[in-house]
């Protein structure tokens, strides 16, 4: 089977899920995105991406952790799966390899 392909935003969301380590759900993931990357995105975008990630098998989810703040409704809590973490590591490895291929000083400001 070929490697799971992840888009850039999907990668960000997957990283947030991993960072939040089991505490990630719609609200916290949106806030983490805003806090760490400065992106303000519509809630629907995050929601859709999470569903897509689950279809790709890189996260799993379960319902739980109802609070009064949410009117007693449960949260859908996301957790990264083994293929998910493998995918993230592979992405990082790939980047690493590509960076190593760069000519030295190529990206120095003066060179462009």
């Amino acid at each position, binding site marked *: 089977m070929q490697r799971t392909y992840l888009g850039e935003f999907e990668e960000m969301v997957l990283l947030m899920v991993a960072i939040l380590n089991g505490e990630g759900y719609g609200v916290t993931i949106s806030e983490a995105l805003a806090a760490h990357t400065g992106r303000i995105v519509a809630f629907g*975008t995050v929601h859709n991406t999470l569903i897509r990630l689950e279809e790709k*098998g890189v996260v799993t989810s379960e319902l739980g952790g109802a609070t009064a703040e*949410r009117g007693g409704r449960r949260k859908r809590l996301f957790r990264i799966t083994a293929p998910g973490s493998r995918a993230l590591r592979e992405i990082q490895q790939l980047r690493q390899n590509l960076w190593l291929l760069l000519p030295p000083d190529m990206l120095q400001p003066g060179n462009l």
Partner: protein
Amino acid sequence: MKSPVQPPRWARWLLIKLHPDNTLEEVTGDLDELYTYWYNRSGKTQATLRYLLNVVSVLPPFVRRRHTDKHYYRQPDYPATFSLQFMMIQNYLKIAFRNLKRQKVSTSINIVGLAIGLATCILILLYVQDELSYDRYNEKADRIFRVALNARLNGEDVGGPMLGPNAARDIQREIPEISKATRILRGGEFVSNETSSFKEDNLLYADSNFCEVFTIPFLKGNPKQALTEPNTVVLTEETARKYFGNQDPVGKVLLFSREKTPHRITGVVRNVPTNAHFRFDMLVSSTDYDEQHIGWLYSINFYTYVLLSEKYNYKQAEAKIARLAEKQIGGELEGFLHLTPKQFREKGDDFGVFLQPLTDIHLYSTFGRNELTPGGNILYIYVLMAIAAFMLLIACVNFMNLTTATAVRRSREIGVRKVLGSVKGQLRQQFLTESVLLAIAALIVGLMIVGLSLPFFNLLTGKTLTLGLLTNAFVAAGLVVGTVLVGLLAGSYPAFYLSSFKPVAVLKGRITAGRGNFNLRSGLVAFQFFITISMIIATVTADRQLRYMQRQKIGFNREQVLIIHNTQMLSKNETLFRDKIIQSPQVITGSISGQVPIGNSALDNTPIMSRENPDKAVMSRFYKVDDEYIPTLGMQVVLGRNFSKNLSTDSSAVILNETAVRALGWQQNPIGKELIGHIDDNGVKTYYRVIGVVSDFHFESLRQKIGPLAMFLGGNSGNILVKTRPGELPQFLASLKQQWESFSPAAPFSYSFLDDRFKQVYLGEQKIEQVLTLFSGLTIFIACLGLFGLATYTAEQRTKEIGVRKVLGASAGSVVALLSMDFLKPILIALVLASPAAWWGMNQWLKEFAYKVTVDWWFFALAGLLAIGIALLTVSFQSIKAALTNPIKSLRSE
């Protein structure tokens, strides 16, 4: 407990209404949380605005739906199973075989139905292919055209495929686009060698360039020089064997006709293919026919073919030939009728020539009996193609119906399979495998049917079709691919429909096939019966017409009339022979005449004029008879008298039929009036006096209206007609043969009976009737299969209902009636639709006949009753079975 701040209620309402149910809880919760956060940070307005924006972002069409189906999500830790594995296919095949074996009846019905449909289709395609392949064996087929005459005289079409002897020569000389022009002339000759003598009916006189235009493969001899000399002849393989056995015939001599003219054999050619518009047993050089008469219009007997040079448009060549014809024929008309072409046309008459592409002659030419072989009809080809398509369509529909009907029985199996983890795709593959397997079995059975029925089909159609075409790789591949497609198509409905059953519902025994499907199915039944009823009506009409024609009073007595052919070969002994025959106690009367009513008397119409009105010509047939002719054939003299041997003046007497008298416009007694006869070279006219009138009789088939006819005494020769007493025929014939041979003529003894000839004339109609009977039988059969499938299906569907009805006291009879009623409606609709269509079609067909039956209302009633009867019989098998089932059985499973 409620949180202190609440988003606007209507926005929440919108969310609840429109957001997918299965993610509603967490999304509403998340948005509430966010609202509180925004509210605390930026105030109510900001929060409401953001809330709204985000609600919209999770509404359709923006929101992605979460699939509840667990297997929709990949199990990435395991490799996904590739569903078309060898093991799986093996399993599908195994299960398919088991299923088909278990349901023997429905399997065989299904296979037979489709097989018959396929077989019919293949047979028709073979036939059509053969019809379309006529004359294509010629390498230059696309460049060969026949020049045909287009003429109108006195309001009658007198055109034909033949021209005078000089047309070919003139065309070749004057028109550069024509690379070659060649003629053939139909002939019949008595041919003998030392050992045997035969009447060769199928010989053609051909020009020396014949073999350069048509592709005639020579086995022996040189095609370039074969027909260049006079009195040379080319034989086909078969003819060569007939005369010379295995000896080499080239250089040997055959004796032609009474005069025993020697003809040298210059070549042997392969037998002419059966799909050619002319066939011959012998080709005789026609060099000695040249320049006998000069012209295009004299002795119009020559089929003239032209070979166009390459890269020329035939329309241009046609225009040039037409111009040439205008000049030549126009000139001849002027010399003959003293009319310029313009005056001729002003009279309402017309003439001209046109080109017929060689490959179109068989199917499109309309010259009927003037053709070298009986032509086909493109209309029949279309009708046959339509029948083939309908048969296949109906067979496919039935196949689908039956497959679905039997598949419903297997809903439990599907339930169990689903519970055990089968996914839809696998079930679909399972069903598709089964139906493809069935279709392939049907193809094999169908091919066997074709193989077995081909001899009978050939007998029926008079063709020599072979399965050779099917060995063509393209055709074979097409058949297999087509069959697999039929299988896939037929299997697709049960495959997609059944695999979507919910296992729980199925296992609880609650399958509800929608009544909506029933409408589609009823439509299909109506369609099938539309075709069936039309076919029945067509068959009945053809049968009535045939019987009508055979029973029709034909105006003479055809019973017990023996015809001895070729008696002109006895020359002077012809009368002697007749006189000898008459002395036999078997014979009542005997007559000599060249003309025999009924059959292929290829007589041309000749104009006759009455003395007082010489401008009015009546096209009439001439019969040359003797004084015994009318009594021998039992014709009725309604006015005047028969010819008499003892009156010498009768040699210039004429007997007309009633139609001729009417056509000449004689109101009162025509006896004693005079006709203008021929004009001799000195311009002296002879007159023929009318001495009698015979009642009209059919001298051709009933397709034609009885035309004017004139009988003359003497100058007759060719046949001896003998009216015999019944009984002892074999001895009589043997003695006749003996007497014949005592004159040692060049021709063999041959004879026929008048009533046999009569039957021969209607062979075509008989064949049409046989073909119609066959096809209507087949459509009835296939339609019944369809009905049977549908009845099985509905009975299956309504088992519970029937059980409940029976428990509540319904009788078996009322249940049968209930189930049968469903099928009556589509059949009645079909009857209503089919009747006018068939009525129109059959009237079109009947137009060909001058004497015909009318399409009566009872034809439709009969067809309708027959269809309904057959349908009820078919349905009753299933409905009675359903009605007699013990209700306990059907209700127990609840």
